[in-house]
């Protein structure tokens, strides 16, 4: 289908301002991504998957400015023993980063993926993104594949003793950043990847994750700090037999965030959990768009998304479970809930199930509500002041999502962040 004129011209206008970078052995992948993007066109408000989130500021040529978070709050994961990989406004900073060698994992900068030495990532870059374009188009991911200026490739071959922490700092108020990472977890290997930091005034990030049979990957990310930042992220994961993928995202602050998560369970007995806890105050729009495809037998998937919204903040959830014919014994679960702390905030949810197998168990639920008055009174009647009681109930609401983090120390770190965020907003 040909693009309408308006979409075509918007897309070409944007592309005219950009240059495809020559980074690593990705030229071919970038050209085909450019082709995909031209065929799809950049998203517009009229697109089915952009009804609830205005793509304008993500699409326009100039990134809107974003001031830097001025606070002495320690960045998340600071006290975690980790391998740091730091990007400053989207550019890898070797001085701030740790040495990239760690037993059980091979980490390279994307630009070091050289065509002559047959690097494993060469075949993966852009591949899962391409697959993830059907049945729903994700043009900003194709834009990323074509224009990503930096990124890392991570190959997990064993069980590294500490997590790999991708840190995105933001110093330039007008930075417009594209990062693209490629991750492969080999058979039986297991690792944890942490991500945090505001990254840029406008951040477009893509991560492609291929987990081989029996591999395990834990992914925990925190998006916070700068109030005016904008981000669109795509996570594409493909899971082999008996593999496990668990991803959790904390989002606080940021005027616009859209996190797309596209997961395909391609091997039998695989497990994929994606969870998110988001707290928004005022000029805040957060969108979780999740698509989980079951294409193998006896796989389990969970989507747990919780949002706390106040002062007119908006939350969006578009979540789908697609069970293909033959994906028998699928166990799919999806819950999206919002806690609206006032009447100005809103939550827009579109939960979807599409099932072509006949022996499956899939459940989904979506709710919006206020603080439980009964619970609040009970706590107060025991002497807990209203503000603390409200925070306690709010954290309790978020708990189901946070509990998806297996590591207790990391879970407590995230809980501490959420508690701090709420405490700073006590009336």
């Amino acid at each position, binding site marked *: 289908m040909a693009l309408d004129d308006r979409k075509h011209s918007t897309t070409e206008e944007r592309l005219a301002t950009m240059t495809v970078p020559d980074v690593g052995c990705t030229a071919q992948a970038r050209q085909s991504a450019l082709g995909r993007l031209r065929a799809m066109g950049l998203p517009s408000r009229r697109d089915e998957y952009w009804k609830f989130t205005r793509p304008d500021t993500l699409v326009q040529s100039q990134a809107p400015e974003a001031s830097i978070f001025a606070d002495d709050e320690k960045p998340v994961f600071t006290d975690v023993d980790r391998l740091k990989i730091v990007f400053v406004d989207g550019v890898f900073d070797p001085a701030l980063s740790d040495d990239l060698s760690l037993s059980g994992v091979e980490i390279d900068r994307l630009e070091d993926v050289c065509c002559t030495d047959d690097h494993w990532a060469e075949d993966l870059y852009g591949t899962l993104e391409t697959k993830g374009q059907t049945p729903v188009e994700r043009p900003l991911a194709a834009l990323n594949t074509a224009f990503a200026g930096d990124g890392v490739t991570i190959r997990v071959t064993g069980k590294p003793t500490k997590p790999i922490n991708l840190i995105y700092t933001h110093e330039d108020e007008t930075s417009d950043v594209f990062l693209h990472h490629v991750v492969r977890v080999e058979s039986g290997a297991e690792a944890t990847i942490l991500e945090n930091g505001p990254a840029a005034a406008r951040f477009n990030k893509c991560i492609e994750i291929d987990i081989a049979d029996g591999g395990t990957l834990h992914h925990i990310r925190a998006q916070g700090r700068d109030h005016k930042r904008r981000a669109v992220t795509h996570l594409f994961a493909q899971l082999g037999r008996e593999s496990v993928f668990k991803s959790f995202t904390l989002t606080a602050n940021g005027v616009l965030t859209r996190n797309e998560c596209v997961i395909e369970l391609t091997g039998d007995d695989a497990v994929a959990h994606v969870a998110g806890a988001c707290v928004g105050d005022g000029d805040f729009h957060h969108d979780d768009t999740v698509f989980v495809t079951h294409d193998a037998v006896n796989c389990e998937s969970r989507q747990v998304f919780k949002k706390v919204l106040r002062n007119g903040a908006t939350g969006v959830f578009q979540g789908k479970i697609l069970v293909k014919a033959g994906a028998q014994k699928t166990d799919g679960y999806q819950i999206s809930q919002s806690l609206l702390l006032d009447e100005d905030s809103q939550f827009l949810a579109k939960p979807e199930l599409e099932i072509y197998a006949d022996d499956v168990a899939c459940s989904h639920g979506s709710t919006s509500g206020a603080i439980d008055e009964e619970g609040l009174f*009970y706590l107060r009647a025991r002497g807990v002041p209203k503000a603390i009681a409200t925070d306690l109930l709010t954290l309790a609401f978020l708990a189901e999502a946070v509990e998806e983090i297996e590591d207790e120390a990391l879970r407590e770190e995230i809980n501490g962040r959420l508690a701090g965020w709420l405490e700073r907003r006590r009336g």
Partner: protein
Amino acid sequence: MLEIKDLHVDLEEETKTILKGVNLSVEAGKVHAIMGPNGSGKSTLSYVLSGRDGYEVTKGSATLEGEDLLEMEPEERAAAGLFLAFQYPVEIPGVGNMTFLRTALNAQRKARGEDEMSAADFLKMVREKAKNLKIDADMLKRPVNVGFSGGEKKRNEILQMAVLEPKMCILDETDSGLDVDAMKLVAQGVNALRDADRGFLVITHYQRLLDHIKPDVVHIMADGRIVKTGGPELALEVENNGYADILTEVA
């Protein structure tokens, strides 16, 4: 300890008067019981005293050791020493029982200008008190009242009372939904807390709880007023003859 004078209370949402001039005085060291038929205003009295929303005091006063309860927020009343054991304890998913107890205790201590209790001291204290009420470690770990049986919920109320050590305890139909064994256990827990400095107000439909928690004074409440006051024998009279006789007699 607790002084209630000519207390008149309306429902906020509708024009309905529930309490029509309650007078009651509970002294330290004493157990008072309030009995009465359904709809007489017993539970409303407990809610108004603890500060629940939805009620409007139109006249009268309620003080705890001379302090005006009605002017205080619910948490201030708790810190001042008032405790309501709920008829229907509330389930709070996501909040662990221990976290709840510790937050409540330390909030009260803080409000009274006392130091917070250390985690170790707190744990030791709770474990010991829980043991007496046959509350196991699992119940302490679970979210507040979630998945608890009726008896477990009521025992959990008494545990909170034991931990918070209030001056004035109000028990709102603590016997409802309990079998005989559970009721005995709860009563033991309450009796263990009886001392010369603490007052109790036990609200119940039935005399049977009062077999286990022996009251000093029994009040009969009807149509928003206390219509008769007597000794423990008044509870037996209700048990034998029902409320009808008493109500006819005072009418």
